């Protein structure tokens, strides 16, 4: 009896796999009556703010383009997948988007590591990918199909250093994450520029996912720096700032665009970070975007992920329009030749490295809010 049951299980598994193989036969590309774009991001996990913010921006762009009649006469649909903040999952969902759903373009990701992972799949399958806010230079290096609509970390790091010099900080400590490529690269570029005119008082590292930073902060406290450069992600920044203030470290902390999402309270008072945008930016393109976003999302003020997601989606749509086809190669070529596209965050021109030269905003946290302290134009 048991033997029969076991045989049944085994043979039915074989049958299942075989039927999978048969049903999985290649079908001719279905002429869909929709324009399908894929989106992958960290909708859950420790960097959920990244994925969710970008998603909202993309959805706003989709609404607007569909309200204007869609692309090539068809409505646009964005298929969103959650990579849970995990590289392997990113690879697997991008594969699903391309192979199973048949998208003609991919939007994502925010974290450079996951953009690198997903970008590998897109590159291999010849599908154009636009990252809204991955700043690690390696994301687009030597890749034909991967683009980004934001600045890169070499620029961001040096801007951070120039800002520090302008603030008159002579001794700066650096606290970076040893297992985040973004953090390592950003601190490297910062240190390169800053050490030319100032002194790095201390350099400590932590790991993403750590919760206790007392050992590193005690070392930093002893070095008595004027400020601390902290190029990490908001989850750890929240904890670090809290523990730093508890230990009695009062100097300002500053960092990069990974700070977006940090809790704005007493502990982050007087801190700064470089970012892609600020809601106080007076430019009309930014203000228009903010109004449409608030209208769609019940008065919620957009973050940098929203605006970069919006711009990435619109660059993709514009490229499809200019290519006037759903052929992935044509779209890729069109994206590569994007010139002076009027993005919400500024004019976007894709250069030879598939990057966009965008200005950097320096935000200051005071009174529980972020304020625009300065804007640096790209060279």
């Amino acid at each position, binding site marked *: 009896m048991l033997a029969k049951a076991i045989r049944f299980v085994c043979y039915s598994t074989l049958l299942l796999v075989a039927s999978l193989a048969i049903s999985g036969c290649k079908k001719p590309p279905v002429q869909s009556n929709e324009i399908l774009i894929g989106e992958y991001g960290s909708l859950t996990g420790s960097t959920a703010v990244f994925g969710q913010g970008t998603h909202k921006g993309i959805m706003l762009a989709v609404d607007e383009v569909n309200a204007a009649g869609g692309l090539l006469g068809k409505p646009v649909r964005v298929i969103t997948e959650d990579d849970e903040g995990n590289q392997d999952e990113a690879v697997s969902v991008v*594969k699903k988007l391309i192979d199973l759903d048949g998208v003609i373009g991919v939007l994502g990701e925010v974290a450079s590591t996951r953009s690198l992972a997903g970008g590998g799949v897109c590159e291999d399958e010849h599908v154009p990918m636009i990252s809204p806010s991955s700043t690690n230079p390696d994301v687009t290096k030597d890749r034909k199909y991967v683009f980004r609509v934001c600045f890169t970390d070499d620029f961001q790091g040096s801007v951070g250093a120039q800002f520090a010099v302008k603030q008159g900080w002579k001794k700066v400590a650096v606290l970076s994450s040893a297992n985040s490529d973004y953090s390592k690269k950003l601190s490297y570029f910062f240190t390169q520029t800053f050490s030319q005119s100032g002194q790095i008082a201390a350099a400590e590292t932590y790991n993403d996912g750590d919760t206790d930073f007392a050992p590193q902060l005690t070392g930093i406290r002893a070095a008595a720096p004027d400020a601390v450069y902290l190029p990490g992600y908001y989850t750890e920044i929240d904890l670090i700032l809290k523990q730093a203030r508890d230990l009695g470290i009062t100097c300002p902390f500053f960092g990069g665009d990974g700070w977006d999402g940090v809790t704005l309270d007493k502990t982050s008072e007087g801190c700064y970070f470089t970012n892609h945008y600020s809601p106080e930016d007076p430019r009309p393109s930014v203000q228009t975007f903010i109004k449409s976003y608030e209208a769609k999302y019940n008065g919620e003020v957009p973050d940098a992920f929203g605006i970069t997601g919006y711009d990435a989606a619109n660059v993709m749509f514009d490229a499809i329009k200019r290519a006037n086809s759903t052929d992935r190669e044509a779209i890729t070529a069109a994206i590569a030749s994007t010139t002076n596209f009027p993005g919400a965050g500024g004019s976007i021109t894709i250069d030879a490295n598939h990057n966009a030269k965008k200005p950097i905003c320096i935000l200051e946290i005071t009174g529980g809010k972020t304020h625009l302290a300065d804007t640096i134009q790209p060279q």
Partner: protein
Amino acid sequence: MAEQTLTPTMLHPGRIPIWVANVAILILIAILWPLSNAFDKYLDPYFLDLLIHIGIAIILAVSLNLINGITGQFSLGHAGFMAVGAYTGGVLLKHYSPQGAQLLVVFPALMILGGVVAGAAGVIVGVPTLRLRGDYLAIATLGFGQIITVILNQIDSVGSFEFGGSAGLHNIPIVTNFFWTYLAVVICVVTIARLVYSQKGRPFFAVREDEIAAAAMGVDTTFYKVAAFVIGAFFAGMAGVLSATVSGNLDPAGFNFVKSIEIVMMVVIGGSGSITGSIFAAAILTLLPEYLRGLESWRLVIYALLLIVMMLLRPEGVLGNRELWRTRRKLLVPGR
């Protein structure tokens, strides 16, 4: 149920003469190449990918079964061996980037190399843990697996070889296809099955059943325990090379404790000690996420519940100790 004593014919799968079995295997391998080409052309890449992942899972499950199920050494660090092999293969492939016809020679060599390096790791894990029993062994192997992951997270590069560290290794040439995967599957399953169900392999079972009695009977338990680890690690390393080159991306976090547990689940649910059980469990557990796509957020909860229920109701797994060709009689005798 009548107790059965072991006889050689019971151990040999089926009563087919060996030479017939060999020819059958060779024919099977010969079919793989054209089959693989046919699949590349006619099969949807997504399903082909799925089949390849099933193949990799089978190798992992069967190799772990040798250690856990057949030799009774509870190893929770199998993903560590896979990682060693994966990085060996991935790093070298990215560094040297062989093209076209070269790959036909280089890739199998890499698979073997990955296996050998992983096998060396198997020695490093197997030897010091000889004295440990049951749960302590489990924790020690878990520890080794985690240490391997942490080390991989730290290494950005060795000399001019890029490792990627915690950011992961990207842009690895994608080489794995149906042929290589299932060639490895056939080799792995045949080797382990032949080894275990032969006169040479009985000491593995002996070590599992009663180590002290086995030692008293003159079995070199040290040798067989380490051998189980080495052989299991070897095939895990091979599977690692295959998985590195299937997506072109390597992330140390993908080889952590959770991955080890997924492989343990395949062995445990299929039946510890049953090679065919592991094969079917590997296939089902790889396919399950596809069918649970709508319930993505509940998937791991369902897995965990499945594991608990399985352990409460039928801890020996679906097939228990049996093989597909020997379902009626239990293979080994008392107490099971």
